[in-house]
């Protein structure tokens, strides 16, 4: 019998390619042959897609393609950055709590409930209002809000492995706690954690959109997908030029779908099938 892994499939690669494309475009935005996202072309205001402006312009004559590419920077940094923070802290604590159990688990778990007790959106609104809304502050706040969720998923997953005999065997062989967590537990927990984290990234990108609607995302005129939709939907722009809101919404939709599919397929692919024919 060979490796009994479920093939990833063509859709996975299409979705992964799209995610990589968005990330590359955002990273290399300064080198792309596109106008500045804040440059105004007074000859073309509220135009639809044209050769000159591939996705058209907004009511200030700014190139939408450029704004979406630069806006992706904000969405991606907040999305991946905050989940990375949450994964690093929540994941480590989850592994530790799930493996050690007992008092360690009780203390960390209680801590996670404290954070969970704040309604996340409200907490973010209050903190951003008082503390300001630069990119890194937003990322940090959302990251902290994501810790308990990621902690709980990874803790539960760790617990399902912590009592298996191979962990006991590793202890009997004299392996240190760190070695057991890194070598034995992490490889088993990682696939489901990564899958969940990718969905988390999607959730945070939507959250950024919601914050933009409340005027709490990064300050204007810095574009983010949320900001662009917000601007496009306000001032009756939606009726004059629906493209302003349509393009970033479409980009967001495609990215979220891709993240979900990639996460799902990865988890299935690395799912160890125990038993079966």
């Amino acid at each position, binding site marked *: 019998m060979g490796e009994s892994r479920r093939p990833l499939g063509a859709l996975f690669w299409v979705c992964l390619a799209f995610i990589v494309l968005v990330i590359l475009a955002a990273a290399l935005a300064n080198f792309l042959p596109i106008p500045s996202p804040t440059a105004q072309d007074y000859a073309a205001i509220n135009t639809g897609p044209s050769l000159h402006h591939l996705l058209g312009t907004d009511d200030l004559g700014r190139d939408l393609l450029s704004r979406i590419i630069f806006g992706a920077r904000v969405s991606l940094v907040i999305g991946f950055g905050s989940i990375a923070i949450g994964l690093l802290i929540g994941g480590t604590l989850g592994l530790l709590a799930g493996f050690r159990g007992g008092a360690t688990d009780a203390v960390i778990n209680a801590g996670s409930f404290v954070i969970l007790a704040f309604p996340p959106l409200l907490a973010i609104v209050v903190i951003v209002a008082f503390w300001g809304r630069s990119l890194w502050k937003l990322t940090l706040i959302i990251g902290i809000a994501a810790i308990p969720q990621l902690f709980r998923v990874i803790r539960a997953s760790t617990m399902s492995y912590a009592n298996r005999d191979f962990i006991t065997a*590793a202890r009997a062989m004299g392996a240190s706690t760190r070695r057991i967590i890194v070598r034995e537990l992490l490889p*088993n927990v990682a696939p489901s954690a990564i899958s969940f984290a990718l969905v988390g990234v999607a959730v945070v990108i939507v959250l950024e959109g919601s914050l933009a609607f409340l005027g709490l995302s990064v300050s204007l005129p810095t574009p983010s997908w949320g900001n662009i939709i917000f601007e496009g939907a306000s001032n009756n722009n939606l009726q004059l030029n629906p493209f302003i809101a349509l393009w970033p919404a479409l980009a967001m939709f495609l990215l979220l779908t891709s993240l979900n599919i990639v996460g799902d397929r990865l988890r299935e692919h690395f799912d160890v099938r125990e038993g079966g024919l």
Partner: protein
Amino acid sequence: MEGSQPAGTPNQPVGTPTGIRNQPAGTGTEGGNGKEILRVEHLVVEYGPRRRRVHAVSDVSFLMAEGETLGLVGESGSGKSTTGRAIAHVQPPTSGHVYFDGIDLGGLSTGRLRRARTQIQMVFQDPISSLNPRRRVRDIVAEPLAIWNTGTAAQRAQRAAAMLEAVGIDPVTVGQRRPQQLSGGQCQRVSIARALMLEPRLLVCDEPVSALDVSVQAQILNLLADLKEQHGFTMLFIAHDLAVVKSISDRVAVMYLGKLCELAPADTLYDAPLHPYTAALISSVPSPDPERGPRTPLAGRTAGMAGTGPVAAALANEVPSPLHPPSGCRFRTRCAYAATLCAREEPPMRQLAPDHFVACHFPLAH
């Protein structure tokens, strides 16, 4: 505690290894050389919150001689697995001592315990759960050496390959597979190989063959006996299957609800059990010998039928919960011979014959 004091002083627990049965040559299970390797004294393991405290092991004492195989049998909930885990110190004892080679393992610092317990290794029941599903067989077997940074990676791989070969696994083809691609028997072979990498002096086998098919079970039993001959380790063989235990053990200990009931050389225990529980357990095993004919029914509903002994009839009841073990002798609720004394006083472990220990007020006569 007073009632359960074993014969002799605490420093001289039951199961003195003198006169361990000599095996006929060639059977593969050589008796021990008489030197004490493991001494378990008043071992108590309890867990759970106070209200629902599980008394898994209650004051168990015994001794193992270097090179012998001690079988530990009992039904589920008897505490036999917990005893094995406490000896390997993967589950800390609540009280009592485990002396390995004269050293009290409970008194060691964390670091020294880590080193000391490499001499005691375990093989588990569940072949799937025993091996990390994400790692390859050859890495799993080399891991013990990697933990202790023994030799170079190439040397470790070489030793792992040699050990895999010794347990009947092809290190080249099977070595690069992951556990889910292996059969149950192969998984157990890998587990055994991993356990032997650190050259332990005591191997605790916790139901190593009960998840396997009979044909594979025989393979693994013989493999363990062969390896024991080659490597000269001592073995604590924990199982619920009395026939399996008999086939591999020099001496057998019987546990019931966290207590040791009886301990004797294997043949003696099976031929002339002194504890009513041991006798009942033996009579419950369905015999695969047709000449004995269909067994006489022995459950409680048919108690009193012709040919049904009181011993067998006794086991109609279920095992009491280890949360609330009965007073006095723990077996009394299912015992046909139970008297008022049994409820009042816990029977001490007594030596009734050389090497034959029993904890019963009214041991069976033969």
